[in-house]
């Protein structure tokens, strides 16, 4: 696998605030990489630095294994924070400006406008567009010249539910083309639905990275109960693969265990000790619980 973006020790300070704090990140070709973090965690600042519009205080980054940064940018489509287009120009004119900058001589403007469902409104000025239309036009702009990688920063921010669905669908379709996508978001659900990999950041610090699946699967929680709950608790406590054990009310226990072991393991364990389980439920953690836990505990985890 070839690396699309490599970030080392990237740091940005605004006065006494460290917006991005010694960040390391590796994004591989074909990944749909989510950068997940609450508002103000440094997502936009990070993406701004790797796109050369914000000057880092320390650290390095390189694109596509280290080609010249301005050539790299021509191969990346970017939507950072807001759709930044000329309000007095219509969709076609705006896309032509982008194509000119990227030196794309025959941009498929009609095709792109159809893809984002703006073809019929293509001669209306950008000023007259709704936020959802603006966002979609910016996505079309990002797709000019068939880029290798795309950056979408909070692409659904401020949209109504219908707009959110449209933009997510659009990003899904772009991901299906096999493009590398870097998407910043503060919405877990969005990252969980769209991304293959995720980096969780808070206060500019990297808290966890890994595939979305691995982060979700790690530390499985199981709810369990038996006739003799104290005997059950006793044998669970003796087992090396079982972590936290806590009571849920009088009759149930909640246990966590390594993600290589599942409910079958627990069942077999109880059976060996002649304990009949009356209740066994896998409570797979959503990324949400994980996200909330990780953001409370400032220690970098790698899955």
């Amino acid at each position, binding site marked *: 696998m070839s690396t699309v973006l490599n970030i080392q020790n990237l740091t940005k300070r605004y006065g006494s605030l460290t917006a991005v704090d010694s960040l390391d990140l590796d994004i591989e070709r074909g990944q749909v990489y989510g950068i997940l973090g609450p508002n103000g965690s440094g997502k936009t600042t990070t993406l701004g630095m790797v*796109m*050369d519009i914000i*000057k880092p205080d320390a650290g390095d980054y390189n694109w596509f294994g280290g080609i010249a940064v301005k050539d790299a940018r*021509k191969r990346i489509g970017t939507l950072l924070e807001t759709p*930044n287009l000329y309000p007095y120009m219509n969709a076609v004119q705006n896309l032509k*400006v*982008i194509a000119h900058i*990227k030196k794309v001589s025959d941009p498929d403007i009609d095709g792109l406008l159809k893809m984002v469902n703006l073809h019929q409104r293509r001669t209306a000025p950008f000023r007259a567009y709704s936020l959802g239309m603006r966002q979609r036009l910016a996505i079309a702009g990002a797709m000019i010249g068939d880029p290798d990688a795309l950056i979408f920063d909070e692409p659904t921010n401020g949209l109504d539910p219908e707009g959110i669905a449209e933009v997510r669908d659009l990003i899904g379709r772009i991901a299906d083309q096999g493009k590398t996508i870097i998407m910043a978001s503060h919405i877990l659900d969005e990252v969980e639905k769209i991304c293959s990999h995720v980096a969780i950041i808070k206060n500019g610090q990297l808290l966890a990275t890994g595939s979305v699946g691995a982060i979700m699967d790690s530390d499985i929680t199981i709810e369990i109960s038996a006739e003799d709950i104290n005997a059950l608790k006793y044998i669970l406590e003796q087992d090396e693969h079982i972590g936290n054990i806590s009571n849920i009310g009088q009759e149930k226990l909640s246990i966590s265990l390594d993600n290589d072991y599942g409910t079958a393991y627990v069942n077999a364990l109880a059976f060996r000790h002649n304990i009949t389980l009356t209740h066994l439920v896998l409570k797979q953690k959503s990324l949400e619980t994980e996200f909330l836990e990780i953001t409370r505990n400032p220690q970098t985890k790698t899955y």
Partner: protein
Amino acid sequence: MLHLLQLEWLKMRHYRPFKVLIILYIVSLLPLLMIISTMDLPEEAGLDSIFMFPDIWLWLGYAGNWSTFFFLGFLAILMTTNEFSYRTARQNIMCGITRTEWLTSKLLFILSVSIFATLVYVILGFLFGFINTDYVVTQRITEQMYYIPRYCLMCFGYMSFAFMLSIWIRRSGLAILAYLTYIFVIEMILRYGLHPRLFGSRDGNRYYPLNAIEDLVHFFDYKRLQLAADSVQSKDFVKVLSGWEAVLFSSVYIGIFIFVSFWLMKRRDL
């Protein structure tokens, strides 16, 4: 180079204020000429020849001095500050041009507008000259044509000053305010308040940036200025930079404006 100039043209061709300001520049040359022609200046100044060759070059140039300062200066401010308020400057850079290219693109456009504005000046100059000069003598037509390149430098000077302020301030309203305040207030304080206090006299107070640019195509020519000044009893009036001084100092100042623009743009976040 051509690619960068085309980029700015793509942005400007659909921008209505661009067209409006260019049209205002062209039409304002005419009424300004009319106003000057009705001004009550002394007979000895010999102002009856201002629409004839070769005087037309200076007089039309002086009218253009004001038009350029306002309309082309504002154009330079709008075309630059807009890119910050629309956040298209950052988008342009993210799309793949460098900051140097971005600035070069704007400066090339400003240079093109200066050349266009000079062409308008030349065409109107010939038009007025041929209509009003009774006996057109070729030598007389070309006598003061050195005002033509100086006019172009003046346009570029005002616009590059406005450009620098825009890169620095980024907000259109504030940049326009700074532009007007600098020339009408700050430079006046520097020239007539600070300068005499520092150097003991007003000598040399015409070397300040915007005055040097203004003097490229100044109000009166030397001989007439002397006559006019004698009759209005104001010696200060007389001091205008000589042609080569104005060219030299303006060029240096323009160099500084461009240098500062690049310096600011290269080190700041967008």
